[in-house]
């Protein structure tokens, strides 16, 4: 759908009398800029409204992370991490059509690799942390490449099952190795101060925001490039893409490697926020979350994963916190629904309803509606 938009903007009028650059930029990006501006100001705005400092509370000689602003910062940091995970999954699944059930592998590697380097390498914490991040980028790109190469032999569901097997194996090992501290998980408490969420959470918030924005821009750049157009061709019909002359493996590898690295970076952020790496990071739950949120938001749309993550995350928060109790008495039997206790059920129902009402996801359905209204408008204008 994005392509349709772009081509519309290249109508002859635009070519002959181009509007000033800044207006083109604003027209295309006003919503992006607005969202980023809001996210930059948010911790301060919450602090200002509630009177709680965004830097935490001073308790004696220490600063502790308490109060509304820091509470919301933690929620948003988690959201940034999840959004990057979902966006990366969407790049592979939504844009390229590669289905993986083991994407959490890369997410978990992010948390664990940084944790292991920081905890076990006895050097300056800054150095250890940077080295950890580089190691994550290295491992996830190599592993992404290797797993991607297998997509040559394994197609569709077989590839998905294979990735699931690898991720589950990693999950099992992480839960039983001494190096990873088994099922208790690896505590990460030797982070440098600037990235420690218990000491400078606002900094972690902004780093998370930067990662989120960067991931969005990288994926956007990629899918609008000529190579990214081939991703979508592969999703639509891989054999045809080969027949017109594309070495489809190259494109799939590019997509899988970028998605793997981004998932690894998202995992680092989650590990930092939790100050631990636990086997769950590698578990199938995160993969399923990424898959479901992609579907809710809109498969193969840029904004879908962001809208889906924000929507679902904030909804879950509200439902778990709410004191709503519905009860229905039908004489014979009584039915009670306690929102905060039965939150999984509520989320499940919302998911089903969203999928039924928005068959292409929230953003995907919106695009289709907009295109149809635009079509109708064009035809009306043409006839009058």
């Amino acid at each position, binding site marked *: 759908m994005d392509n349709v938009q772009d*081509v519309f903007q290249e109508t002859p009028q635009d070519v002959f009398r181009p509007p000033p650059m800044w207006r083109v930029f604003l027209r295309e990006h006003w919503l992006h800029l607005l969202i980023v501006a809001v996210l930059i100001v948010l911790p301060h705005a919450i602090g200002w409204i509630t009177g709680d400092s965004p830097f935490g509370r001073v308790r004696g000689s220490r600063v502790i992370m308490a109060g509304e602003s820091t509470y919301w910062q933690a929620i948003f940091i988690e959201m940034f991490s999840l959004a990057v995970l979902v966006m990366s999954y969407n790049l592979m699944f939504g844009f390229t059509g590669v289905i993986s059930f083991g994407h959490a592998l890369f997410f978990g590697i992010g948390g664990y690799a940084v944790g292991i380097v920081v905890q076990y390498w006895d050097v300056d914490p800054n150095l250890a942390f940077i080295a950890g991040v580089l190691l994550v980028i290295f491992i996830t790109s190599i592993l992404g490449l290797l797993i991607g190469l297998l997509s040559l032999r394994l197609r569709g569901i077989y590839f998905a099952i294979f990735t699931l097997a690898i991720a589950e194996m990693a999950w099992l090992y992480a839960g039983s190795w001494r190096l990873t501290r088994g099922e208790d998980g690896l505590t990460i408490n030797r982070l440098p101060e600037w990235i420690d969420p218990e000491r400078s959470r606002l900094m972690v918030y902004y780093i998370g925001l930067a990662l989120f924005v960067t991931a969005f821009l990288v994926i956007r*750049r990629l899918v609008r*490039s000529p190579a990214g157009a081939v991703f979508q*061709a592969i999703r639509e*019909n891989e054999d045809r893409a080969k027949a017109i002359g594309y070495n489809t493996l190259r494109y799939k590898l590019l997509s899988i490697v970028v998605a793997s690295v981004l998932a690894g970076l998202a995992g680092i952020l989650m590990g930092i926020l939790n100050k631990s790496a636990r086997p769950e990071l590698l578990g199938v739950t995160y993969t399923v979350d990424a898959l479901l949120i992609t579907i809710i938001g809109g498969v193969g749309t840029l904004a879908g994963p962001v809208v889906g993550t924000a929507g679902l995350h904030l909804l879950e928060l509200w439902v778990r916190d709410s004191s709503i109790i519905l009860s229905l008495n039908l004489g014979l039997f009584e039915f009670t629904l306690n929102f905060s206790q039965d939150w999984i059920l509520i989320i499940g129902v919302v998911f089903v309803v969203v999928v039924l009402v928005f068959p292409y996801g929230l953003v995907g359905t919106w695009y289709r509606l907009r295109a149809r209204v635009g079509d109708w408008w064009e035809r009306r204008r043409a006839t009058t």
Partner: protein
Amino acid sequence: MTDIILQSHSLRKEFGALVAVDDVDMSIRQNTLHSIIGPNGAGKTTFFNLLSGKYKPTGGRVMFKGQDITDMPFHRRAHMGIGRSFQITNIFPNLTILENVRLAAQAVSPQAFNFWGTVVHHKDLIDRAMHVLDIVGLAGDSLRLASVLPHGDKRKLELAILLAPDPDVLLLDEPTAGMASEQVPEIIGTIDNISKAHDKTVVMVEHNMSVVMGISDVITVMDQGRLLAEGTPSEIANNKTVQDVYLGRLYGDADELIGKDA
């Protein structure tokens, strides 16, 4: 010899015990419209799959412009100048018509693996796509999704996809398959125009006899994986073996068919 562009030498494909293509020697001359006919299961599609590289032959060679391409992978042959369409409509359904064709033009351009540019900035590819859409008569619909096109227009779109990279040889597998009979003359006219006005070599598998007789320069008849006969339309129509084995059996009186078109 020099004007032979595509050639097979004892080309063979076995599926287990079944010999789908049985030592076929065929020469396609440049700028001709060469039709391949034959009953169902004769091995026509399999033969195309060997020429286009979708399948590896179990024996024999494929030569293109004097070069042995037998072991060249599927996607490389498009770059050499061989384009092929499929018996079953084969497009990118959820992309626009323009994008379907633009992708085909991009495949052979230096932009193919450019992952940092922006698609819409490469006007040359868009222009190229619009140009071939114009040839097949779909330019007006370029921004609609390919999936919403009626079947006949989807087949035209396939032709446009094929033409976009400006290939030398087009392999068309039943381009009129599944089309309503009143749409057939239009697409055949387009194919005829492509081969004559745009200097392309067209190899076409086709079941519709009146079509084949009307526009072909050469016709090859295949049966059970083997070449049965080869010649001009009138030679084929008058060929006794062909009449017995194929034309008579399937299409009744062949002369009548030719008469209709001549």
